[in-house]
């Protein structure tokens, strides 16, 4: 297993690599449980969060993760920046590079922008979500949360529900969870299913996906899909695909319920379920910080070692 140079997606990953990273995340979570939540692991490193698409949660999570390990952090967001004035994203990246940064955590609206960035930049690139393509740290934090509940993922059935075609969360989970032994089912309306989702079985039948599932992941429904015409009716979606207590009963009784947030209550998920005993939404946020600490550590220190 070679050292990680960037984290763009899980192409070329094996089980040992995934388990190794999740094990580091576990050590990082111990740090988060201390009264003094800071270690000097990344002292002297500078991490940039470069967000070409707004996402307060992911940005805060990465910045906190870097700071917990004593890295310096600089943030760039598209809003109010020079990008709005027409500067190309390559120029933006090269300008940042001139500031001697070590890692670039990049959120991008289009698939492949992080791959382009990795070709241009000397530092390490962490994909914080590129278009519909990948969101690897989200999948890692989902895996981390599931392992907490289920102990291991071998032979476990994980159901992902919602707008699969447009979801980087679904794509990354479908790549990662089978590496850890899980069987992934993806369910959504026919017009929001991709032609293929490597690593997952596709179905338009919500009940089939939920049947006997060991864990359920509900995706955020983007209201833009209505304007695009790929989702004819929100009412129809809610009727057929909203995850409700009644439908969830098809899954294992203690199946953890995940959502990457932010949540549209009573659209993709019945409001009460979000606060119920099966919900792991808060757990996911905490796992996100630990996983992102582990990723930055592996990329910046693990590489030098």
């Amino acid at each position, binding site marked *: 297993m070679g050292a990680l140079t960037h984290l763009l997606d899980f192409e070329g990953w094996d089980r040992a690599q995934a388990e190794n990273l999740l094990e580091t995340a576990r050590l990082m979570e111990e740090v988060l449980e201390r009264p003094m939540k800071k270690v000097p692991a990344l002292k002297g490193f500078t991490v940039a969060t470069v967000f070409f698409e707004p996402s307060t949660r992911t940005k805060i999570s990465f910045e906190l993760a870097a700071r917990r390990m004593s890295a310096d952090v600089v943030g760039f967001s598209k809003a109010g920046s020079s990008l709005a004035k027409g500067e190309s994203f390559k120029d933006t990246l090269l300008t940042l590079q001139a500031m001697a940064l070590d890692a670039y955590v990049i959120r991008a609206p289009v*698939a*492949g922008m992080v791959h382009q960035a990795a070709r241009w930049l000397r530092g390490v690139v962490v994909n914080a979500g590129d278009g519909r393509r990948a969101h690897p740290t989200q999948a890692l934090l989902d895996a981390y949360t599931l392992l907490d509940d289920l102990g291991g993922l071998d032979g476990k059935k994980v159901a992902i529900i919602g707008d699969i075609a447009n979801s980087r969360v679904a794509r990354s989970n479908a790549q990662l969870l089978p590496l850890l032994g899980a069987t992934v089912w993806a369910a959504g309306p026919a017009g929001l299913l991709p032609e293929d989702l490597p690593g997952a079985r596709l179905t338009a039948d919500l009940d089939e996906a939920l049947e006997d599932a060991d864990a359920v992941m509900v995706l955020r429904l983007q209201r833009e899909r209505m304007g695009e015409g790929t989702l004819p009716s929100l009412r129809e979606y809610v009727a057929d695909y909203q995850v409700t207590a009644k439908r969830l009963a098809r899954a294992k009784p203690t199946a953890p319920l995940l959502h990457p947030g932010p949540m549209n209550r009573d659209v993709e998920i019945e409001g009460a379920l979000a606060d119920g005993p099966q919900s792991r939404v808060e757990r996911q946020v905490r796992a996100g910080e630990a996983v992102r600490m582990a990723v930055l550590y592996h990329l910046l220190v693990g590489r030098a070692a």
Partner: protein
Amino acid sequence: MSLLIKNARLVDGSGELGTADVLVAEGRIASLSGGDAARVVEAAGKVLAPALTDPHAHLRTPGQEVKEDLASGLRAAARGGYGAVLAMPNTDPVVQEPEQVQALLDEARKIPGARLFAAAALTRDQAGERLTPAALLAQAGASLLTDDGRTNEDAGVLARGLIYAGAAGLPVAVHAEDAGLRGGGVMNDGRLAAELGLSGNPHEAEAARVARDLEVLRYAVRKLEPLGRRPLLYFQHVSSARSVELIRAARAEGLPVCGEATPHHLTLSEDAWRDFDPLLKVAPPLRTTADVEALAGALEAGDLCAIGTDHAPHTRAEKERDLESAPFGIPSLEVAFALLYTELVAKRGLPLPVLIERMTSGPRRALGLEPARLEVGAPADLMLFDPGLERSVEPEKFISKARYSPWAGWRLSGWPLLTLVAGKEVWRDAAVA
């Protein structure tokens, strides 16, 4: 000034013509059996062919000279072995008035490069609504009408366009994609696009439009028949196996239709998209390897009658945007021949005369011109290339303003060494003494 090209292997679209000493004088082929000349080029082991004709290039003039201009485009073409290039009218402003056509042709005559053929828009501002004056454009010297860059959504407008253009003796070229099905697709639709999280442009968008346009053509043929005229419908950059089938059937039926293949659709497949490089972004998109096979087969069989580069230069900064906002287009004038010689003739066994035919007489016939022949009296629009000379593609050395290429670093043979237009040298490689 006279020129003697000695011991060259002569090949034109009609076949292999053996070895000869070709004398060029007063802009024509004066003899195939030697003679006295002011200058002699020793060409043993090299191939002399008619200079190529590109029926589809974007030279970006007027208005987008930052991407390409007539001088850079026509000189790049000459370097690529081309003696003539048909420039697309999707410029700024759009070429749609007779005066614009004349001005372009006049300007091009001053440039030591390939000849310019001018296309004009089929509809005003290429908006697909009101027709341009086909007869006046033909009189001004336009060679073809097209709204390339846009798709012709209104079948009625296209039908009337074919009728007026046909009456004026002009072919109509179409970028055949159904705009609705194509949507915002940036790459070939299918499992790979789904996996890469990119929006797909399905091959059905092309096939659906080809099928419709063939019916429109049938209608125009019927309407023109009493006038003793025939329209000609030219499908640009055909990219998929299904479209090829439709065109083959239409030709078998005798419909006046010609399909074009491009260097990129003949040599690259969607698999290259795993690199997420906007240099590969082109419309219609690169398809599957099965489509590439079908195109190569159709080219050999003659179901596709011409190779057009669809040379579409943009600035490097534009091609370094993200995959959604980067513009469509691949520049190829300077590599097209060596690329196709290497990939189709040397590697796949396509007969050389067939490749030459599809790059000379094939497109010329579509434009209503005489086939290009290596015979005494023919215009000395010639191209000499060396099948044994292997070099890497070096985009930084391109004459074109678009100094990048999806074939950068490819080892190719068959590079053009000498290009003549009316007997005048418009390209000479350093390898020619």
